[in-house]
């Protein structure tokens, strides 16, 4: 979104928003999302839970896309880093009496450190090998979480204290909304900075980037560590929202879910993950709850959807957006969809 040439503009608010990586259309969507849980059909507790899940998946997809799309390093053990953050945060909260929002950073820190270590080993390799390696790291972490019963309570799940004492879901929703906003603003800010230029160069043409004096290993490691750290941070929110973390969270199937959302949203767009996540989660939950007699149908549809997207719109929602909204026939739509 931020690659447009800057025009002279006196609109201070618009400029500030553009600096943060938002188009007018994005702000509109954000405003709608923020008041959605107060509007009648959506103010029921279970729908707010879906919204929370959607925001969480969206934030996870943004952080995934930061390495998966921008530098083309697919972290196929992504949910292991997410789950590590959840476990770390839950364990710290159980053993020390600290405020939970502070503890959530422990989740981010632990995943970031692991991401740094894994990155130091694997990021010298090519994309496919990195993907396999992170996948195996994910499998190993899941095995550890299942086997280290004394620490993680194994498959029975680790019980974590909730973030807020009252039972309402609304504060959780605004927490995760702010967290996903922070994720987006920080990561898109990095992508638009000079570091991000190096990232994009590495993602598009490694040889060219190296010829221009970019050290791929260093930038890849920075990117990967950040992506993992954000995953752990969001994972910590998961732990304190659902209050129970099982090894199942670390499985490949969950990674695939995030990956599908990120790719449906459009790779290397960052915002695409957020846009795709909420309709996706709602669609999945609706199909699952309305077709109980046909278990697994929602997953079949989602596999089908993934294949069709890959065949016909490999760029995902971002490609559709570029084709039909940013270059729309209507002047107002074009204006809304570009940064002022």
């Amino acid at each position, binding site marked *: 979104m931020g690659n447009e040439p800057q025009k002279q503009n006196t609109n201070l608010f618009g400029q500030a928003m553009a600096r943060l990586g938002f188009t007018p259309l994005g702000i509109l969507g954000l405003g709608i999302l923020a008041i959605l849980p107060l509007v009648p059909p959506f103010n029921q507790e279970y729908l707010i839970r879906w919204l929370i899940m959607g925001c969480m998946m969206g934030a996870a997809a943004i952080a995934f896309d930061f390495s998966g799309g921008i530098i083309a390093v697919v972290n196929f053990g992504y949910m292991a880093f997410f789950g590590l953050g959840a476990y770390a945060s839950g364990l710290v909260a159980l053993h020390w009496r600290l405020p939970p929002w502070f503890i959530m950073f422990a989740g981010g820190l632990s995943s970031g450190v692991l991401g740094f270590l894994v990155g130091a080993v694997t*990021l010298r390799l090519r994309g496919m090998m990195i993907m396999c390696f992170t996948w*195996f790291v994910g499998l190993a972490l899941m095995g550890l979480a299942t086997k280290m019963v004394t620490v993680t309570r194994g498959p029975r799940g680790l019980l974590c204290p909730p973030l807020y004492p009252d039972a309402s879901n609304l504060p959780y929703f605004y927490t995760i909304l702010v967290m996903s906003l922070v994720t987006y603003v920080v990561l898109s800010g990095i992508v638009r900075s000079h570091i991000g230029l190096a990232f994009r160069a590495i993602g598009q043409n490694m040889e060219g980037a190296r010829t221009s004096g970019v050290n791929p290993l260093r930038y890849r490691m920075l990117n990967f560590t950040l992506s993992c750290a954000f995953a752990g941070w969001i994972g910590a929110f998961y732990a304190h929202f659902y209050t129970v973390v099982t090894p199942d969270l670390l499985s490949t199937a969950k990674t695939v879910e995030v990956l599908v959302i990120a790719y449906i949203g459009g790779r290397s767009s960052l915002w695409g993950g957020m846009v795709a996540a909420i309709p996706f989660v709602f669609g999945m939950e609706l199909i699952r709850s309305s077709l109980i007699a046909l278990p697994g149908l929602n997953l079949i549809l989602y596999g089908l959807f*993934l294949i069709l997207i890959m065949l016909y719109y490999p760029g995902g929602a971002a490609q559709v957006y570029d084709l039909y909204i940013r270059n729309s026939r209507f002047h107002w739509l074009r204006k809304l969809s570009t940064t002022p």
Partner: protein
Amino acid sequence: MDRLPFRSRVLARFRLWFTSAAGISIIVAALAATLTAIDQGPYILVNTFVTGGMWGLMAMGLALLFGVMNISNFAHGEYFMLGTLVAYYLFESITKYLIRTPNSIVALLAPIFAICGAALAGLIAGVMTDKIVFLQLRKRSREEWIMNCFLITLGLSVILINTHQLVVGTSYKGITQYWEVPPASIFGVYISVDRLFASILAGIIIVIFWLYMKFTRIGQAIRAVSQDESGALMAGISVNKIQTLAMAISCGMAALAGGSLLFMYPSYPTVGLEPLYNSWFVIIVVGFGNVMGAIAGGFFIALLQVITRTYVGEGWEYVIPVMLIALILILRPSGVFGSKVRGIWEQ
């Protein structure tokens, strides 16, 4: 080396092989196998051979697909699942028929029939997958081919697993044994005839496949496509047909492995995960696209898992191999046997 007399030529080749990564790892694996066999009894070796052959077969299909089409197939385990499913239903219906009309020859041939049916189903499924999905992608765009294909196979995997669940349910559909005969004894180890047959079958298929790739014209065409696609096209090879064939062979091998291991892996929706992980371990260890190295890798991984299970305990067989693979990757990014995969510095 050509000028040297034959004997020293052979010796030089041997010395080269012994000091290469492949040689060292094979020797280390053989040593480890011998030591554990001395410590724990020969059943370790027998176990390794039975499962290793099958993992080799699965990994060979995976490597073939990667070599010929650059597809890293995440749905490979699902073709294994398809094999178990088809073999189960074929074998069950034959058993029901046999209860009504006993016939010893049919009873003897029933498992072979079931396994062949499974392999055939895998072949057909492979052709269909290629025609319906990958041919369409080939026609459309070649950009980001590896990643797009990988995602498509992810989708395929999800679809196949859940279709299984939707159509035939999540129950375990398995058999206790194919042939109702007492186990055979090798080196004082009792091994069921099913396992013995499975490992022999794996060996036969591997040899046939090797001969096919080496000596037939179609096998040569497959190797040509895997070396250079446009070159093969210019030489008049129908690349599309070869790619469909490679997909069919790959899926057929996975389904064959599933069919012949039905007594170990009863058919249920996610039965393919374990074979999938194992064949991917193999691929990583030997390097992508290395078809023949996959066989040695299959035994290597099987040995590693058997040893882990014996000495560390059940459930650790993913943790330890991953650490070993990490070591291998750090030391040799292109895999033990070397192949097209390189580090970013030498891309």
